[in-house]
């Protein structure tokens, strides 16, 4: 009984923590970052779809799968980079970088990445 009660309170606190997390997120996150977050969620979805397809239908042609999945992961990561660098809370962590510079890097990384991915798709 006691342990059941304990788990009950644990889940309660977890639920509370999650709810407070969501509240703080909506309160603290600027609109621009929320757009990036949505894009990141989309990237994850794309990656998951490809992974499930690969698991269900086989990995052939492997290079195409790797290119597609890799580009989804890379897009997610680059978006995360952009988000970190443009988050006003992180300003002091990145000395000498601006939002424009971060976006420039984002574009540069994508150019390099998709050059590779296009070559790899075959």
């Amino acid at each position: 009984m006691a342990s059941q009660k304990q788990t009950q309170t644990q889940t309660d606190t977890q639920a509370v923590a999650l709810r407070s997390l969501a509240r703080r997120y909506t309160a603290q996150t600027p609109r621009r970052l929320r757009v990036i977050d949505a894009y990141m969620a989309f990237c994850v979805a794309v990656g998951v779809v490809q992974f499930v397809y690969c698991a269900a239908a086989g990995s052939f042609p492997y290079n195409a799968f790797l290119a597609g999945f890799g580009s989804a992961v890379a897009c997610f990561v680059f978006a995360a980079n952009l988000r970190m660098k443009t988050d006003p809370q992180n300003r002091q962590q990145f000395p000498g970088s601006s939002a424009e510079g971060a976006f420039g890097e984002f574009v540069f990384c994508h150019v390099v990445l998709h050059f590779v991915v296009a070559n790899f798709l075959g």
Partner: protein
Amino acid sequence: MAYKVFGLTASDQTSLLRIAILGLISIVAVGSRLYSVIRFESVIHEFDPWFNYRTTRYLVDNGFDKFWNWFDETAWYPLGRVVGGTLYPGIMVTSATIYNALHLVNIPVDIRNVCVFLAPAFSALTALATYQLGKEVKNATAGLLAAAFIGVAPGYISRSVAGSYDNEGIAIFLLVFTFFLWLRSVRLGSALYGALTAIFYFYMVSAWGGYVFIINLIPLHVFALLVMGRYSNRLYVAYSTFYVIGTLASMQIPFVGFQPTFTSEHMAALGTFGLIQLVAFASYVRTLVPSDQFRVLIRLSILGLFVVGFGGLVLLTMTKVIAPWTGRFYSLWDTAYAKVHIPIIASVSEHQPTAWPNFFFDLNMLIWLLPAGIYFSFRELSDNHVFLILYSLFAAYFAGVMVRLILTLTPIVCVMAGVAMANVFEIYLDFSKTKSKAEAVKAEDSVMEKKEREIQGELPAAKTIYETAGFKRFYALFPQIVVVANFLYFLCMFQLHCSWITSSAYSSPSVVLASRGPDGSHHIIDDFREAYYWLQMNTKPDAKVLSWWDYGYQLAGMADRTTLVDNNTWNNTHIATVGKILASDEDTAYELARHLDVDYVLVVFGGMLGYSGDDINKFLWMIRIAQGVYPDGFKEEDFYNAAGEYAIGDTASPTMRRSLMHKLCYYRFHEVMGPQGFDRVRKQKLPRDVTLDNFEEAYTTENWMVRIYRVKDLDNYGRSHHAASAFEGPRFKNDFVF
């Protein structure tokens, strides 16, 4: 204190000086690698470079597409080799690009010269990259010192003299530059530098198998920082950018293929990538939910994840989902592994464990500056210094396991020595404090004097020499002068040592040998090229030449003939077959040789000159390798005589005397050395009565270093060759008169 020289401010002067010093370092780096060209000629060295040279020529002549799809049917006969898919194309593409660029501006340079001078040119770039690395971790002084060190360090020169056209020649530059970019991207948290790191990593992957070192060291750095609780968003940006682009790019090289997704060597990088995503997410959540225990929790979860991940890796490796570590990697952990399981790896001298003197030989004083550098890194211990320490430890370990990995140790030793040296010089070359101290002493002196005069009246006291101001000033400077003079002396000795080593040990092309007569006269021994040229001129273009694998690339490159095995060593069975042919008796060998379509057999024999790297000395390895694949009928012990010695003369074991290798080497040798003749390598008496029926001597070079035999055709009358030669009577046997 702004002195102006030629109208330049102090900072302009420093940058001008820096550029001038770097220029001089580059010149020295290139210049000290040219001994071999001056002594011998502009020729490709050794073994592997001949393959690189041949493929480069093919690339230049036939274009990239054909090169990429090249199936070489003249190697590994009758199997052939998919050249395009089994090489690291970086060095060939680099040379071809330089060649084409030079021709575009109407400089009609020969491709051979591009290849010969590629490694020295890249060594200058390595010096510049090392400067950047040193500057990144300490300051420009350390950078300049490190650049000066790497420019002449024998550990690197050994692989990059002019003519040594091997992957390492450009790979060390790429290694150092990739690490520099990595450190900068971590420090700035810059995705741009992360992407550049990935691009140079890709170049490195295309150039050398040693790229595995990068893809393990960088994740290790990240992992160490995470465990130290030093996660930062900068680290996330740098690593994740590097990893996603680098991995996808590395898979573009056919030889690497999909390996990054399923081999153990690459799993650490993947695991670290997953880990840093989790850590990044956790640390983001922490900014939303501040908590004191969060840090503890993160550390715990990192360790837990590491255990789970490592266990999963082991499990997947055991269930063969992930390819296990290759033999070469096992031999990195267990130095005896190769000798027991893969004799072919153990047989290569550069895969042997390093002897202690080698470190001093190749790095001189740098090797004892390395611990000093590590000490100074520990004192500062920024993210960059963690990297330097990890690199030092791992490279030092690997260099101890395998001689040729001193090459990967050299850059970090140079950087660490530069850091240590810069620290020393920073303290001991700073005369501003001493100067003020000396002035203080002087002032104190005069005050004292005045006081003394006041006390003692008008008579000034007679001073001993220890009390004079000049002595005191000297005394204050003394430690500085001693230390600086000492280190300058070491630096000079270092330079002398490096030049001496380079000129005496690392500048021989090994295709062409030099010797000095007792009167000091200089002889060039050109037997290898003589033999290869003979083959090219006197045999059919499709003739198949059997030799031990060491000479395969040279045969293909210089004689342009089909070979059975070469330095690629991808097929152990085929090599063992060749070993079996050379180790069996004449009749078995003949049968096998005809079975494999062999037209000529080539052996290298040093008994006349005293050239110890010949086939008789390598013979035991051939037997061991053959024994590994054909265990029946082969025993290494059979080749030792009753006394357990590896003898070649009349006391040799019967198996040894029957073996083809023995016969091919000593056939008719006593005719030139006389009945009392000695083998100059083994210092043993020559065997008499070496008969040979199934093979006939086709060519022997001036110094008997290369002997070529023709495999006889079947007898016209259907006899065995023994019967045929018995019928024809003894022609050479015992008929010399002395």
